[in-house]
């Protein structure tokens, strides 16, 4: 089987999520990559070094600069004439593009796979991860998005893929990129952080969130996450949200501070290796999944913890 993996990048570097998708794709067969963007020569060279990669198709055109699905999907659909599976990391860009490709190919997409059980059989979470379904597809071509936390990352070095330019399918004139507000942070990215400190509604406001959660995170070199309640209340931006409808994370250590443990939140972090919960309510559901629990007032214990580390 020949697979085409969509490379997630920021115009300069290949994003880690791509490496997990490569691992998933390699379980299906030969791995080809697609780098679409503008001025992506360096990205393509980096992508070609990923271990196990065959061809790297490069579509360099302004139409692909911001990964607009309206322009990228027709390009992919064309390349799929010579591939059997389109494999995409389940990032926001990936989730935006893949179903549009599936519709153009008349294929039912398989979202967020956790494992490859056979050439046409996969497992995937449903109901916020409260159930795991094994599904088999009847479609000849496959369109798959890959949950990053479920697959090892392919080695970023060691490969020698052949770079090949592909003709642009052009700008379809349906959509225009207007701008973005991308938070810049010195802290590790949530989806690849080894340690995450997350804060919930209990923080009460943005000042407390910064004053209490961030020093602990900085002491541990951790990424910072949040519950939806904290994001909705405006303590932190939307990209901090962990959960069913936010980011899926699985760090070595996840520290939940003042988070109750609603199933939608657990869906995003319950595969963390060690879960530590700090909550003043000893019956909070988060303690049912926590390896280490500390019952206490976060305003007292978190500063003390930060200081003693």
């Amino acid at each position, binding site marked *: 089987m020949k697979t085409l993996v969509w490379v997630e990048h920021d115009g300069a570097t290949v994003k880690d999520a791509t490496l997990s998708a490569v691992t998933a794709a390699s379980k299906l067969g030969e791995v080809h990559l697609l780098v679409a963007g503008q001025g992506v020569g360096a990205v393509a060279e980096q992508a070609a070094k990923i271990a196990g990669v065959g061809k790297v198709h490069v579509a360099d055109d302004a139409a692909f600069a911001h990964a607009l699905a309206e322009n990228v999907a027709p390009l992919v659909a064309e390349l799929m004439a010579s591939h059997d599976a389109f494999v995409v990391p389940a990032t926001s860009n990936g989730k935006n593009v893949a*179903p*549009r490709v*599936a519709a153009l190919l008349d294929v039912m997409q398989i979202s967020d796979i956790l494992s490859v059980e056979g050439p046409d059989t996969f497992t995937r979470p449903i*109901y916020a991860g409260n159930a795991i379904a094994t599904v088999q597809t009847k479609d000849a071509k496959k369109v798959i998005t890959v949950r990053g936390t479920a697959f090892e990352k392919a080695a970023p070095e060691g490969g020698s893929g052949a770079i090949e330019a592909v003709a642009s399918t052009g700008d379809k004139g349906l*959509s225009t*990129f*207007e701008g973005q507000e991308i938070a810049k942070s010195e802290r590790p990215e949530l989806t690849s952080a080894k340690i995450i400190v997350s804060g919930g509604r209990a923080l009460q406001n943005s000042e407390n969130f910064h004053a209490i959660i961030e020093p602990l995170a900085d002491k541990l070199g951790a990424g910072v996450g949040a519950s939806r309640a904290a994001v909705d209340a405006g303590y932190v931006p939307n*990209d901090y949200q962990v959960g069913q409808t936010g980011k899926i994370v699985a760090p070595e250590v996840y520290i939940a501070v003042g988070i109750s443990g609603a199933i939608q939140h657990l869906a995003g972090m319950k595969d963390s290796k060690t879960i530590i919960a700090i909550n003043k309510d000893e019956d909070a559901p988060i303690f049912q999944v926590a390896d280490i629990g500390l019952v206490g007032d976060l305003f007292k214990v978190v500063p003390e913890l930060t200081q003693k580390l």
Partner: protein
Amino acid sequence: MKVLVPVKRVLDYNVKPRVKADGSGVDLANVKMSMNPFDEIAVEEAIRLKEKGVATEIVAVSIGEAKAQETLRTALAMGADRAILVQTDEKAEPLAIAKILAKIAGEEQPGLIILGKQAIDDDNNQTGQMLAGLLGWGQGTFASKVEVSGETVKVTREVDGGLETDSFKLPAIVTTDLRLNEPRYASLPNIMKAKSKPLGVKSPGDYGVDVTPRLTTLKVVEPPKRTAGVKVADVDELVAKLKAMGVAK
């Protein structure tokens, strides 16, 4: 401009899903079912567009069993004008749903179709993007702000790194994220009024769409269970644990 809002009937988000012992799926017998939360947000957004004078008519659509009528009545009680139920007992997949919706869009000629970003039962996150692909329209997915002006819709989208704003030529597809708005509750008088609003019943065959699934579910199991660990008495004990784990020096 007409706005189409597809709504799905799903297990209520407050109910803990139970996997059936025979591994065939999640038990939906005698449990509370509700409108998918993202679809409530979609209905609310359509109503706000109507209140602003941008939308003229709101048509809610659901594909599913006869009981999906309840979900459509909820949409009507919130403020939709009319509803269409495409009735089928088959669990139609996003691709088939998108095909039916594309046919309805052909008949209704909406300026905007607002869907949820994902249905919280199967967590597919596909239908809006597929529909956009089938229709050849733009897709403003994961929206946290929607502004219609003239022939375009500007959508602020929740993406991995933060927010991205894109504009799309109308007609277009929008899919909602959680922070787009806070849906209203239907008032009692509006619930009464909704009972007499028009609700047409169709079948997938009326649209010439085959809803036979492409995916076969071989089994559904519970994920590995996490068990509660230990409680530490104080911060010192927690620090000791973190040191033992090598997390702290």
